[in-house]
């Protein structure tokens, strides 16, 4: 049984216990995120929320979606889409900022 689990871990990156640990960390970060709504974080409010959002995103994509352990081609395909989406947002934001009176 343990040999089978070890082989599974080697092939697919993590054990079930590892996934549960990641989920606990994600739940803790979510609780911290929600706390920013009630507690005044001052100038750290926006940066801390952005950092927590990115950390959660990367953790789910890397561990639950196995991108960390899978082929780099998948990483390239996904992050290219994400990069283009960010480009769309920045372009739209810039358009509204500069061309609307």
């Amino acid at each position, binding site marked *: 049984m343990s040999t089978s689990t070890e082989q599974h871990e080697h092939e697919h990156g993590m054990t079930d216990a590892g996934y549960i640990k990641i989920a606990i960390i994600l739940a803790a970060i*979510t609780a911290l*995120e929600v706390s920013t709504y009630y507690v005044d974080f001052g100038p750290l409010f926006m940066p801390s929320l952005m950092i927590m*959002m990115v950390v959660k995103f990367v953790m789910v994509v890397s561990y*639950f979606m196995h991108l960390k352990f899978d082929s780099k081609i998948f990483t390239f395909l996904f992050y290219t889409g*994400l990069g283009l989406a960010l480009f769309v947002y920045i372009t*739209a934001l810039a358009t509204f900022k500069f061309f609307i009176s």
Partner: protein
Amino acid sequence: MAETATHTADHASEHGHETSTGLTNNKLAMWLFLGSECLLFGGLISTYMLYRGRVSDGPHPMAIFDIPFTSISSFVLLMSSLTMVLAVSSAQRGDDSRTNLWLTITAVLGATFVGGQVYEFTAFIREGLGFSTSLFGSSFYTLTGFHGIHVSVGVLMLLSTVGIIRKNKITGTKAEVVELVGLYWHFVDVVWIIIFTLVYLIPS
């Protein structure tokens, strides 16, 4: 490098396909699809961020958002990602009964999230925020509605997968089919991670 290539080729052959990249076409197609979905949600999130402050009529976002309720919904969806990854893990071990159990739990959690969203929309409409009340209302319902539709499609995919595993009618590798459904499910979760922060937690 050669070792990695051999491992990738072994991985592909394990899933029953021989391709020039050493990767299965189904998985490659799913990642391409998810990359294109990033653009769809990127456009919707951009539109919301640009129009979030445009409240000409109707209630202001911060006056109607119920943060404790949405936080619980977010937690439910986040935990569904854990049950989904446990389903994938069970499928890769060839444990059909546990795979079906985790898939069913994931579907129930997903349906709970969608139910919460329907309740939230109903409450907002009752408080005077219709689809065409303001630019904020239109962009909010479009963004969160599209996400809700994605979750609903995911629930149908999960239940269908449970059905075809039970009837043993899967064409191809069982573990790969569950993994592909899992990739879609995790994607709707990561999209919600962004929506929850940008739409609900950051005041407009």
